[in-house]
């Protein structure tokens, strides 16, 4: 796992073109098929992904790697996406930093979006995730930050 983040940091520091930045994404999702499809989409546009099947596992991965973005399913067993996002924000209060967390939700309603924002997530996307949506997300939340480093 540490190898992944080293590669990531290395590639980022040697590439100045925003389009060739390789980002490392943490995908927290319990549905095995959605895990695979989303991971495939991420790899297809040239980025790297680590998959966690629930919120607890996502927290564990968060402490092991330096990610550029989290895609967080809301409804998951063990620990849901809201609790996992809140826990990441609590850890950041001590450690510093702000990792962009995007909620992936099945429900297209305002109250649901608000719960995600209240838990400390930056944005909310109603599934399914498409390649274009993913690119937009990266452009908005990740690439600009990487560019200014």
């Amino acid at each position, binding site marked *: 796992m540490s190898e992944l983040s080293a590669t990531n940091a290395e590639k980022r520091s040697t590439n100045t073109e925003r389009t060739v930045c390789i980002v490392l994404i943490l995908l927290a999702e319990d*549905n095995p*098929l959605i895990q*695979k*499809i989303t991971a495939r989409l991420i790899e297809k546009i040239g980025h790297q992904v680590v998959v966690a099947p629930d919120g607890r596992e996502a927290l564990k991965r968060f402490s092991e790697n330096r990610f550029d973005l989290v895609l967080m399913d809301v409804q998951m067993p063990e620990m849901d996406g809201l609790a996992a996002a809140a826990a990441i924000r609590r850890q950041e209060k001590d450690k510093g930093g702000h990792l962009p967390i995007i909620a992936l939700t099945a429900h297209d309603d305002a109250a649901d979006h608000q719960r995600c924002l209240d838990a400390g997530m930056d944005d909310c996307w109603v599934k399914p995730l498409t390649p274009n949506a993913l690119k937009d997300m990266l452009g908005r939340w990740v690439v600009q930050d990487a560019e200014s480093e």
Partner: protein
Amino acid sequence: MDIETMAQKIGLDVESFKELLDLFLETSRSDLAKLHDGLTAGDAQKVAAAAHSIKGASGNMGFSNIYEAARKIESDARTKHLDNTAEDARIIDVELNRLDGGSLRRE
């Protein structure tokens, strides 16, 4: 719709799509069996959970008929209405068989 078009629609190459289609059929059949178990037992929560899983997977694969039927089953089951569930589940079953034995498989 041919397999190239379907793969392109969700942004994948044909090879990946075929592999994920197999996985989709396998997991959705297993979920559909759970849904029927839940229905037989009158367990609305179990029905909703199975429908939720099918909904998510079909939505990501771009299978709108299955998605729509699963969405309806889940939403009905959340309010404990299981009267139309058997009929909606049949739509899913028919669509899964169509995907499995249809033109997508011949390529």
